[in-house]
C-alpha cells in the first residue's frame, strides 16, 4: 500500500518534472503550433519548386492569414504614417503587402535548398505575445543551423498574428523600416515620391 502510494507519488512528481519545462502558458504552446503550421506550408511550396505565380499565391495567403500586416506596415514608415492622407495610406498598405509577398517569395526560393524548420521553445513577450524560437536545419550537416525567432501576438478578434521574424537577431521588420524611413528622410518626407518608388519596385518584382 505504502509502496504503491510512494510509487504513484513518484510517478506524479516525475510527470510534473517532465512537463514542467514545457509548461509555458497556453499562448506559448498555441504560438508554437501556429508558427509551425505556417512554416510547414511555406516549406511545402518551396520543396515542390512550384512556379512563381503559385508560390507567390501561397506566400500571399500565408502573409494575410499569419501576419499582422497592417501593424507591420505602419511600423515600417515610422512617424510618417501620421503625415499620409487616407488615400496614401490605402495605397501604401496595398503596395506594402505586395512588396512583402514578392520579396520573401523570391528570397526564400533563391536560398531554399531542402532545409527544414525545427520549432524550439517559446517564451512570453509582454502580456499577449510570445517569442517562438526555431532553427533552419540544412540537409548538409556541415552547415550551421540558422536561428529564427518569431514574434507572435494575440490580436483582438483575429487570433494569433506574427509581427516580426528575427533571423540570427536581425529583425526583418526593423530592416524594412530602416529601408523605408531612410528614403523618406532623404527625400524630405515626400510621400508621393516614396509611394511612386514602391509602385515601381513592386511592378519590377512582379514581372521578374
Amino acid at each position, binding site marked *: 500500500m505504502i509502496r504503491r502510494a510512494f510509487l504513484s507519488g513518484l510517478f506524479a512528481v516525475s510527470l510534473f518534472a517532465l512537463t514542467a519545462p514545457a509548461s509555458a502558458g497556453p499562448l506559448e504552446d498555441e504560438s508554437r503550433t501556429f508558427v509551425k503550421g505556417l512554416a510547414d506550408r511555406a516549406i511545402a511550396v518551396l520543396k515542390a519548386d512550384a512556379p512563381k505565380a503559385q508560390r507567390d499565391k501561397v506566400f500571399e495567403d500565408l502573409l494575410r492569414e499569419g501576419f499582422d500586416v497592417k501593424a507591420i506596415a505602419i511600423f515600417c514608415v515610422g512617424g510618417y504614417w501620421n503625415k499620409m492622407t487616407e488615400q496614401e495610406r*490605402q495605397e501604401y498598405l496595398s503596395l506594402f503587402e505586395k512588396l512583402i509577398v514578392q520579396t520573401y517569395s523570391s528570397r526564400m526560393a533563391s536560398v531554399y535548398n531542402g532545409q527544414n524548420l525545427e520549432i524550439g521553445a517559446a517564451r512570453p513577450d509582454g502580456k499577449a505575445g510570445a517569442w517562438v524560437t526555431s532553427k533552419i536545419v540544412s540537409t548538409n550537416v556541415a552547415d550551421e543551423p540558422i536561428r529564427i525567432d518569431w514574434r507572435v501576438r494575440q*490580436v483582438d478578434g483575429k487570433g494569433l498574428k506574427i509581427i516580426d521574424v528575427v533571423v540570427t537577431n536581425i529583425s526583418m521588420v526593423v530592416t524594412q523600416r530602416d*529601408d523605408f524611413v531612410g528614403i523618406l528622410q532623404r527625400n524630405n518626407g515626400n510621400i508621393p515620391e516614396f509611394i511612386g518608388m514602391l509602385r515601381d519596385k513592386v511592378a519590377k518584382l512582379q514581372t521578374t
Partner: protein
Amino acid sequence: MKNKSFFRFSARICGVALAAMLMTACATPPTDPEARKAFDEANDPLEPTNRTIFEFNMAFDKYLLKPAAEGYRWSLPDDTRAVIRRVLQNLRAPVTFGNDVLQGNMGRAMETLMRMTVNTVMGMGGMFDVAGQYGLQRHEEDFGQTLAVWGFDEGPYLMLPIFGPSNIRDAIGLGVDSVADPLGWFLGWPELAARAVVEGVDKRSQVIEPLDELERTSVDFYATIRSLYRQRRMDEINNGAPGMNLPAPSISYDFPDDEKIAEPTPTPAPAPAAETPATPAPSLVAKPAS
C-alpha cells in the same frame, strides 16, 4: 621590421581617407521633426560621402570582387573551399583569442586557444575542424566588439572603401586588429595582403545569391545594408544572445499612431475609394465592421 612598409602604406591610406572625409561637407540635419528623428536614428552624418564610397564599392564589387567570387566558387569544389575557409578561420583565431581575453571572457578565450591548438596540430594547420567534433564551437571576436564591450559608442556610420560598412568604433577596431595580429610577426605584408584577398573572395562567395536578392528587393539598398550591418554587429557584440538587439521603439508594438488615426477614421474597411481590393484593411483598434 618586415611590416614597416605595410604600416606606412596603411597609415597613408588612413590619412587620405580621413582627409577626404573631413573635406566633404556633412549632411545638413533636416528641420522637419520627423525627418530629424530619422536622421538621428540613422546616425549617418557623413551619408553623402558614404553613399559615394558605396557607389564605388558597388562598382568594385560588380567588376572585380563578385566575378572573382563566382570564379572561385565555379573553379573549386565545395570540399576544397571548405578546407580553405577553415584554414583562414584558424588563422583568425589568435586575434579572436586576444579579444576574448581583452573582453574578460576567459571561458571563450580557453575555447579559442584549445580550438587553435587542436586544429593546428591534429587538423593539419587548420584544414580540418577536429576541435569542432569535440564540441568546441568556433566564434569570432574583433577589437571593434571589444571596444563595444568596454562601453565605446559605435560613433557615426562609415562606409569604408573596399572594406564596406563600418563605423568609427569598428574602423578603429579593424586598424588595431590588423596591426596587432600575431600573424604579422611571421608574415610580410604581401602574404598578409594575399590572405586578405582570399578571405574577401571566400566571404563574398558565400553570399552571392543573398546579396543579389537583397539588392533586387530593397527600395534603398544603401539604407538596407546600413540597417543590416548595425543589427549584425549588435548580435556579434552580444555573442548571439537572443533578443538583445531589438531597439526600444520596436519593442512597443502598441502603435499609438494607429490609435490616433483610428479616431477620426474608425472604419477604413468600407473605403469609398474602391481602389484597394488587395488589403482587407484590418484595423487594429476599430471594432470589426462585419
